[in-house]
């Protein structure tokens, strides 16, 4: 039954790859998404604790990330259906440089989307570090064709960087797995339950080496600086719904790999070591993204750097532990929702204005009111303004930092958040406000101004969720993220 979470999208993906027919493919995409969501909800409802030593099982952090993934996929599935109607299988003229390019065959795209969902689910439910590794590598391979949907040189460059850097990083993570096995003197299987119960019997030197390798490896996939160099290119060149899944779901799943390692080290008494490393890389990511967000001219790259920032916040929160860790888990939820909303809106902005440069977009509120409003709301959400949910989580993390006396960390955290808010505001606000311009591309024709339902519905759904969390976090959600944080290694 648990396996159906992986099998349903996998089978749908294979069917979409091979069975022709546009309508069939759209249908299977929606069906795969809905089926996956149903399976996840069923499993969440009837949760049984996983038997110790099983290959797959669903625990709190896995379930949390799985729910986020499922919700995002549903939203993007609706978006994709309309998007493909508009874009697929045509020769398109590139608006930036003027050449013509083709898009990828729809079958490959939809098939890979579903397989992407399937592999991400496998990451969330695997309880064996080896299986986790296989699944993460599989997500890299399956998502590479998604990035190069528009077959032109920029997206190919982005795809190549993504493929190579992430594969090299994940090879390091495999090394980490082997180091974990060495730590157990070759007798402890790489199952999470076994590793956790072995605890202090594991060799500390090998454990530290293992965590370092896992951090570098999965951190590359997660986008922690300085291993983030593939992220801005990949997330900005991919079509918007792919960026949504990459930013909102994949980064979380990569983080799960690090968290498993963190929990093992915590059980062995080395939680301080891994926590400090996480805090360091988290702050570094925030600083690097702040630096690159200043004067960022491309609004999709801006969103990508914002993802790096938020992954840094996640790492920092988990590294601090305690209350901050619960805040980090809540933050994961909020970030995925807000980032999803932003990317989908960005996609519509790209369609309306025809350019990814922020300078080419003016007065969105007047030209396309709904989209402009959503873009503004998304900006406020992602930078942590009330009344959106990210404010709650960032505040919780800050509270956790201050309570444990980490003044320096808190100061750096606040400084980075401030710089990022200002930098993003400088890019976003001129896009939204101002007088409508006279000449294109800043004044798109009337045929482009309207936003179809398949764009606005998912975005408003996501916006509603993030607003909801901002206004009121239900206690059951607090308990859930608390348990997830505890299991993921927050002391």
């Amino acid at each position, binding site marked *: 039954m648990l396996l159906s979470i992986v099998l349903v999208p996998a089978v749908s993906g294979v069917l979409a790859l091979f069975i022709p027919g546009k309508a069939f493919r759209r249908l299977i995409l929606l069906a795969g998404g809905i089926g996956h969501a149903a399976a996840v909800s069923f499993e969440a409802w009837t949760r049984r604790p996983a038997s110790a030593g099983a290959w797959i099982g669903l625990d709190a952090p896995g379930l949390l990330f799985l729910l986020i993934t499922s919700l995002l996929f549903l939203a993007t599935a609706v978006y994709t259906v309309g998007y493909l109607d508009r874009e697929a299988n045509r020769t398109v003229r590139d608006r930036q440089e003027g050449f013509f390019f083709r898009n990828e065959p729809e079958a490959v795209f939809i098939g890979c989307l579903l397989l992407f969902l399937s592999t991400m689910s496998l990451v969330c439910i695997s309880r064996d570090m*080896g299986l986790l590794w296989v699944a993460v590598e599989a997500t890299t391979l399956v998502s590479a064709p998604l990035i190069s949907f528009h077959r032109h040189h920029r997206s190919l*460059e982005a795809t*190549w960087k993504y493929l190579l850097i992430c594969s*090299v990083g994940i090879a390091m993570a495999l090394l980490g797995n082997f180091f974990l096995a060495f730590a157990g003197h070759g007798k402890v299987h790489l199952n999470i339950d076994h590793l956790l119960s072995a605890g202090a019997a594991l060799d500390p030197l090998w454990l530290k080496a293992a965590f370092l390798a896992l951090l570098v490896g999965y951190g590359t996939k997660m986008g922690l600086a300085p291993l983030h160099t593939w992220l801005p290119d990949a997330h900005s060149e991919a079509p918007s719904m792919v960026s949504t899944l990459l930013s909102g779901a994949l980064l979380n799943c990569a983080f799960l790999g690090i968290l498993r390692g963190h929990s093992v080290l915590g059980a062995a008494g080395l939680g301080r070591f891994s926590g400090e490393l996480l805090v360091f890389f988290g702050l570094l990511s925030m600083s690097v993204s702040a630096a690159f967000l200043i004067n960022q*001219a491309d609004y999709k790259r801006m969103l990508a750097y914002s993802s790096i920032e938020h992954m840094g916040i996640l790492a920092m929160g988990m590294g601090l532990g305690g209350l901050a860790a619960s805040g980090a888990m809540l933050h994961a939820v909020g970030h995925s929702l807000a980032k999803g909303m932003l990317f989908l809106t960005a996609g519509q902005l790209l369609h309306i204005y025809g350019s990814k440069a922020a300078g080419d977009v003016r007065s969105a509120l007047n030209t396309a009111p709904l989209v402009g409003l959503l873009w503004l709301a998304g900006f406020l959400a992602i930078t942590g303004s009330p009344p959106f949910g990210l404010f709650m989580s960032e505040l919780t993390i800050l509270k956790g930092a201050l309570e444990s006396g980490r003044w320096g960390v808190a100061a750096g955290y606040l400084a980075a958040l401030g710089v990022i808010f200002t930098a993003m505001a400088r890019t976003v606000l001129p896009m939204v406000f101002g007088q409508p311009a006279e000449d294109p591309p800043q004044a798109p024709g009337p045929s482009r101004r309207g936003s179809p339902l398949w764009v606005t519905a998912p975005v408003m759904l996501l916006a509603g969720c993030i607003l909801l969390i901002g206004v009121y976090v239900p206690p059951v959600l607090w308990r859930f993220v608390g348990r997830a944080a505890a299991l993921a290694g927050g002391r």
Partner: protein
Amino acid sequence: MTLWTDLFILALVLTNFKLLATSRLAALIKTTAYQAVALSVIPLTLAARPWPLHLALLSLVTLAVKGGILPWLLRRAMREAEVQREIEPIVGFSASVLIGMVLLGMSFLIAVPLKLSVPMQSAFLFPGALFTTLTGLMIIVSRRKALTQVVGYLVMENGVYAFGAALAVQEPLLVEMGILLDVFVAVFVMGITIYQISREFDHIDTDRLSELKG
């Protein structure tokens, strides 16, 4: 048994030097095939005879995939991208061999404190595996052609795999197969991407792929 293990690890180290010193893509691909041969035999030499079935099976599959299928994929990609050799690497060949010597020294140095607590009969396995991983990284970083970078990735995977060879007796067969499958698909996807890059750009020099900045 240690003698055979040592000999094959030595062969592994020598193939790494060959990889660093050659510029022809065909030679690079052939040398990774030789590495695969050495790699697949090492777990067998570490285990006591008679060899357990899953170990023999693993060695055979490793040999088939890393020694046969992957080089074949790479040769196909080489033909389609129509490249023969690395003309101007970022780090020249003499420098690469020198850096290789430094890396070998480093691997031996690092191995001294990290005594492997797994019952491993050979003291050369850790340095040899680490050296292979570092060679792979070196190749990725210092070469221009995308295909050479894929070879570097394979070498890196070989190095990491060599670490696992020590555990091959205990590690579940399924995971090892999964790793092999992943590497196979990785090279497959990379090969396709290289083909598309060569078609789009008319070259596969990755250092010229620098449009996306900032």
